[in-house]
């Protein structure tokens, strides 16, 4: 019998489906089967697909829940992001930046103090025109044609950090040291990285492939993060963009970031 890569992934995916129904897994993924009984179990057979994935963040909801780090915790746990406990070695996929730093060009002297210091969620913008992809000398990072996700190959990355330099949003982290001893709770179903490679948010492409929403979206208690297909006029993200005034980070640079913020 010939088992190709695709079949192998399908097979291993199916075996994890067996686990998916257990209460522990449901608690971990935050899925409530009582409320959504019709939702199919996570499987490679029912991936979430879109022509252009994008996210809308309702900062009002986010700010109202002071000190909440649910999305950050969920993301960093899911993806085996190490915690070095110092800013020099820091690796982060999603974090909070003060509004005045996240949106430097929006800041002014009389801006509401609350907003000025408001912790603003920032992560990879999955730009339509990503400078990081343009500069990579090995195509270890690329924009996936089918849905616009900016991907990373941690096995091809040579660690030159040109992408880190080229990203106007500071969204990329480099593994200055071996990250493995600094992973608080190892998740065996997601790869760890070696020292010397760059990493960042991947819109949870591994979860989308199994029909799951990104971990941060799922974890948010305020439903402040909405993820969906920009190309689908019926999608929730399009609905939000239609009914709210939204801003993006550094739109003037022409990178076409796909994270939209409702202020």
């Amino acid at each position, binding site marked *: 019998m010939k088992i190709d890569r695709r079949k192998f992934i399908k097979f291993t995916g199916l075996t994890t489906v067996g686990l998916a129904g257990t209460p522990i897994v449901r608690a971990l993924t935050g899925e409530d089967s009582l409320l959504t009984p019709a939702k199919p179990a996570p499987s490679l057979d029912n991936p979430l697909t879109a022509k252009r994935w994008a996210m809308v963040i309702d900062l009002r909801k986010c700010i109202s829940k002071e000190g909440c780090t649910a999305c950050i915790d969920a993301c960093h746990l899911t993806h085996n992001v190490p915690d070095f406990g110092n800013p020099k070695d820091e690796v982060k996929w999603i974090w909070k930046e003060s509004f*005045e730093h996240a949106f430097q060009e929006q800041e002014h002297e009389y801006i509401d103090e609350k907003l000025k210091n408001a912790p603003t969620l920032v992560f990879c913008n999955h730009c339509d025109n990503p400078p990081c992809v*343009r500069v990579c000398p*090995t195509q270890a990072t690329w924009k996936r044609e089918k849905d616009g996700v900016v991907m990373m190959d941690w096995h091809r990355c040579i660690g030159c950090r040109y992408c880190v330099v080229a990203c106007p949003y500071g969204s990329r982290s480099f593994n200055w040291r071996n990250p493995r001893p600094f992973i608080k709770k190892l998740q065996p179903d997601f790869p760890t990285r070696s020292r010397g490679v760059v990493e960042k948010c991947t819109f949870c492409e591994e979860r989308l492939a199994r029909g799951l929403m990104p971990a941060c979206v799922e974890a948010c208690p305020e439903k402040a993060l909405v993820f969906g297909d920009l190309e689908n006029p019926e999608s929730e993200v399009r609905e939000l963009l239609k009914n709210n005034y939204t801003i993006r980070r550094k739109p003037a640079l022409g990178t076409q970031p796909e994270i939209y913020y409702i202020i």
Partner: protein
Amino acid sequence: MLEKALKGTKAYWIWVISVMAVMGIAFLFYLKQYHYGLGITGLSRDVTWGFYIAQFTFLVGVAASAVMVVLPYYLHNFKAFGKITILGEFLAIASVIMCMTFIFVDMGQPFRIVNVFLHPSPSSLMFWDTLALGGYLVLNVIISRVVLDAERKSIPPPGWIKPIIILSIPWAISIHTVTAFLYAGLAARPFWLTAVLAPRFLASAFSSGPALLILLCLLLRKFTKFDPGKEPIQKLALIATYAMAANVFFVLMEFFTALYSDIPEHVMHFQYLFLGLEGKATLAPWMWASEILALLALVLLLNPKTRRREGTLVLACITVFISIWIDKGMGMVIGGFVPNPLGNVTEYAPTFPELMISLGVYAMGILIVTGLYKIVLSVRGEVRA
């Protein structure tokens, strides 16, 4: 011909072994870095490139500056450069090898570097820089080898080498232009987003390179029987003068555009470099020193009296070299990272292991220059005998 580098006096061998000892110590530090990761350097999430990449940038300039002897000698038949052209080319070879080594030690996964060739990416300037530098190395190895071999046999070099020499002239310009493009094409980094970066790189290179070549020639004259003669030294000094004037002019252009337009994200980098931001001003004394040395160098070079007197010329060459080394080897790269794209100020300073590894790379360059110059002098010794 390489065997000529293996025969020398006791003093020669003491020098070679000392340089190799420095390389050996540096290699131990590199092993430590390889084991621990680049976290051993002062680099961080905010300042992702530092001393290594800055040295690389500076040395690409030194490599490119060989064109300042090659062009007058081969294109304008300026005979006075006959004795030193090969020294310029050999300096270029050593510089390119140092550049490549600095890139290598800066890689997070150095042994994956072949991926650059396995997955060629024309959209990346790093891909083009690899081609440009590699090509330049090959060109210079072929040219110097063929020309020196002809000199050894006291015959004119073969005709086919001429087009290759001509090709090496624009190629030299290209290596530093492409290196400037590594920086100048990034929307994320306003400090480097300036069309004058490549011209400025070339001007500073064509000043610091000839200045270094003058110093090397005078050192050779002091320690060997080699005598470059007065004319080529003076010609090199003139080239360094014009280039330094152009360099300072370009720097002033940068100041004007950034400061008069007063766009915060452009001004802030200059502010950090010269005055400091949020009370952080590690680089300020260095930057002021660089500017003051640049002015001093200009005064010494522009004044014909001080340019012609050897003592003051040596001082001028040293000031040019240090001024540009600070500017390119520290300010240019690090200044682009502070503040970071989010406006946060994180400072950087190289660590001891980082400096030791860099010293080792320079020692390797010195070893290569020593060996290659020894070959030239041995060949010429034979010719004279």
